[in-house]
């Protein structure tokens, strides 16, 4: 019987359509598609949502009081195998849109850590891969550092292993991602690899060995 395809979702958190970060995300998704992945992309600026209000109502029942486009999106993400979250770096951090999105996962955090109604097995987490995709204008080496902790928290809440970063800084010098010597090719390659890896994991033990080789 044919195996179900590896489901990949890319979330673009840039206010800017088809900018450097979304282009890098597209390269990753293209690679994933070529490797047989079932690929989907959501652009946060084209859906409608509010940031978390910090009301903590979800700590009581695990339900967010805000009913908007994010609830079905989070439901969908939970059915995915690979989650790629893409945000450019603005002022040494992810964009307000991206932060507004991931903070809303608080109700899932509450289910996992307060109400204990959500539990991901180690095996589940190993089979679900999260990737952070980002670009930054400046060449500073620490430009992504403040984003990493938020990504760690987010992937943990969602039950995805924080698998990799696909990041490229110094966009101002390169004059855009398309002029970067390696970033797009690397993103495409990583998209292909991750689908192969997850497909192997889904298949079971035999796949595990292949995966060890790939990593």
């Amino acid at each position, binding site marked *: 019987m044919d195996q179900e395809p590896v489901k990949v979702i890319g979330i673009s958190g*840039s*206010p*800017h359509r088809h*900018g450097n970060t979304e282009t890098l995300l597209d390269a990753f998704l293209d690679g994933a598609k070529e490797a047989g992945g079932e690929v989907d992309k959501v652009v946060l600026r084209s859906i409608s949502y509010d*940031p*978390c*209000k*910090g*009301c*903590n109502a979800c700590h009581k029942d695990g339900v967010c009081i805000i009913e908007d486009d994010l609830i079905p999106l989070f439901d969908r993400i939970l059915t995915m195998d690979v989650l790629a979250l893409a945000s*450019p770096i*603005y*002022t*040494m*951090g*992810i*964009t*307000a*849109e991206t*932060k*507004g999105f*991931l*903070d809303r*996962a*608080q109700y899932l955090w509450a289910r996992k850590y307060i109400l204990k109604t959500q539990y991901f097995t180690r095996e589940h987490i190993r089979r679900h891969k999260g990737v952070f995709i980002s670009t930054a204008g400046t060449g500073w080496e*620490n430009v992504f*550092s*403040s*984003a*990493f*902790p*938020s990504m*760690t*928290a*987010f992937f943990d809440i969602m039950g995805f292993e924080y698998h990799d970063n696909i990041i490229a800084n110094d966009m101002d010098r390169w004059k855009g991602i398309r002029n970067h010597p390696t970033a797009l090719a690397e993103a495409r390659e990583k998209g292909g690899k991750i689908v192969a890896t997850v497909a192997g994991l889904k298949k079971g033990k035999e796949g595990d060995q292949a995966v060890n080789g790939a990593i």
Partner: protein
Amino acid sequence: MAFKILAFATGPRRHGNSETLLDWVLASMAEEPDVVIEKVALGEVTVNPCRGCNACEVLNRCVQRDDMDVLHDKIIAADCMIFASPIYCLGICAEGKALIDRSQVFRSRKYVLKLPVVPPERLGKRLGIFIASAGQNWDIVFDGAKMSIKCFFHVTEVKDKDILYLLVRGVDKAGEVETHPTARDEARATGKRAVERLREMNR
């Protein structure tokens, strides 16, 4: 001459822990004769996120028309800016991040257009205070937020050494900061130290 204090309460929860810390700082500053305080709650005004259009690199102003038009001038006029935010998912809340990102116009003015952000005589005389509260008790819980807030202060001509921090961990529930053993005293001391610093800087 009175020092102009411009305070931002950026959390979505009005009178939450970070805003309470801010209010304590402001109350201790208000006891001094030489300060004028203005507090802005971001929930009561409209500051949209930056669109990343980079037009400010050419226009020297933002293409968006919202309350940032007014806040822009207040930021330039202030002697001391205070930024209070809760920590969500190991970073500043989305509303606070939107305000920080809208400081891109100052960054463009300073680094791209090479124009003054404040009059030259104000350089080195502006103070910043970052106030944050976090539910988690981890050591690293403020690290990400500090990187972004430093950028906000740098582009608005507040030097690294002129940023004071009031960071309180382990307060999550509404009003929990009230029961914190030292937070109120620390906030009060921060307010006093800030006014003292402003006097030194502007002597």
